[in-house]
């Protein structure tokens, strides 16, 4: 506790009064910890009055704040006053490190998700095949977007007339979705078992991405793409 005495010697130190009370307030070092934790976890800047209400009876959050402010001087994070309240903020000279923090994330469009899903489950797959499965044409922008995100890339050309290019998913995709390989994508039966799919298959519907033969064929082709 001596560090506190020496550190802010010019201030009137009212800590002695604590012993007068029946229930001692926590030591100043502890109060400083409390202020630090509350400032860190609060969604908005915190007022001294708010701190008083939260901290045990007899605490002096104003003083603790002053210690905390000094402690963070010159560090990567600072205690700053915002109007009547206080907050922890990163040091302005380190703002350049935070640029990545400002990236805005948007949900992928439904068309893009469906296209991506088809590529993941059916790779290598041509654009015409994607359109056949989705039942609507795939806009160029959708494919471009997925390519740009590096979630898909061009696979080898199909040995069919016109030798169309195919699409496959990338390691970036696997990483993003926490998959070790595209083979770990659950089949429809498993989706249904996990409750992700409410409905039953229509009677007489062809087996959907589940049939053994399809699976095997897929595996063969995928073996080149994803070796494990």
């Amino acid at each position, binding site marked *: 506790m001596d560090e506190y005495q020496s550190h802010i010697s010019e201030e009137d130190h009212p800590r002695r009064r604590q012993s007068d009370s029946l229930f001692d307030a926590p030591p100043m070092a502890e109060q400083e910890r409390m202020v630090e934790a509350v400032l*860190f976890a609060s969604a*908005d800047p915190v007022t001294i009055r708010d701190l008083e209400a939260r901290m045990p009876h007899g605490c002096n959050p104003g003083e603790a704040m002053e210690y905390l402010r000094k402690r963070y001087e010159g560090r990567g994070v600072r205690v700053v006053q915002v109007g009547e309240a206080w907050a922890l903020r990163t040091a302005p000279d380190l703002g350049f490190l*935070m640029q990545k923090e*400002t990236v805005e*994330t948007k*949900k*992928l469009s439904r068309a893009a998700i469906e296209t991506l899903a088809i590529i993941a489950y059916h790779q290598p797959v041509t654009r015409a095949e994607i359109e056949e499965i*989705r039942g609507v044409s795939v806009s160029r922008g959708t494919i471009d977007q997925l390519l740009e995100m590096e979630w898909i890339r061009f696979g080898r050309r199909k040995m069919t007339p016109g030798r169309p290019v195919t699409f496959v998913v990338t390691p970036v995709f696997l990483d993003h979705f926490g998959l070790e390989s595209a083979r770990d994508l659950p089949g*429809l039966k498993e989706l249904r078992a996990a409750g*992700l799919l409410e409905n039953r298959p229509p009677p007489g519907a062809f087996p959907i991405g589940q049939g053994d033969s399809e699976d095997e064929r897929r595996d063969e082709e995928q073996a080149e793409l994803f070796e494990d």
Partner: protein
Amino acid sequence: MADEDTLFPEELQLSVEERLEAEALIVDVHGFEGPLDLLLMLSRTQKVDLRRISVYELARQYLTFVERAKELRIELAADYLVMAAWLAYLKSRLLLPPDPEEEGPSGEELAAHLAFQLERLQAMRDAAARLMGRDQLGRDFFARGQGEDVQRIKTVTYTANLLDLMQGYARIRTKDEFRPFVMDRDSVFTMEEALERMRGLIGFTGSWTDMLSYLPDGWHSDPVKRRSATAATFAASLQLVKEGKMEIRQTESFAPIQLRTRPEDH
């Protein structure tokens, strides 16, 4: 099972009769998650390490439980009865000296496995309790509450999670099931369609023309289609006559119906 005491009879000092009585009170199987859960609860009455549990005694208790349930006409799920049958078998195996002729695992082996399963389930429950007893994020310790509002570079990235992906795929592969109910209209030519078609054609017909010539291509041969197209075209013709745009005539019953554009100056 009105209160805890009847659920956990081991907490009371009970005679065998009393214990049986207590068991009769716990036949409400809704409180249990299957036979293994029930067996685990029953095993607590033995007050011993699960590794030293008497499976024979446990089997006896379980069978008593099932008997009571039957007496009280409580319907037991099939898996409870399957377990009862198996335990009855196990009990008899444990009673009889091992038959060297008989194939398969011995009663002791089966009993040991059941004890293992019970011990493992109990261990997982303890582990679950310990896990939930840990300090938890958002309850005991906290992450940064305030986002940094630095906005120097604004890049948009698109994100999706695995659920989105799987649900997207499921949506496509099952979309036929979600098709809203519609009448099958392959062979139906509507009056609106006929009107549209005729409005485009009447300007060219100054002289009397057979109405059937207005039928669209491909609707002549199939009788079902032909009937629909004829009816629609006839209804559309009447509409156009009513609007004063056409004239219509028929020389006699079943004779061809003829149409022509109404002359402007009349």
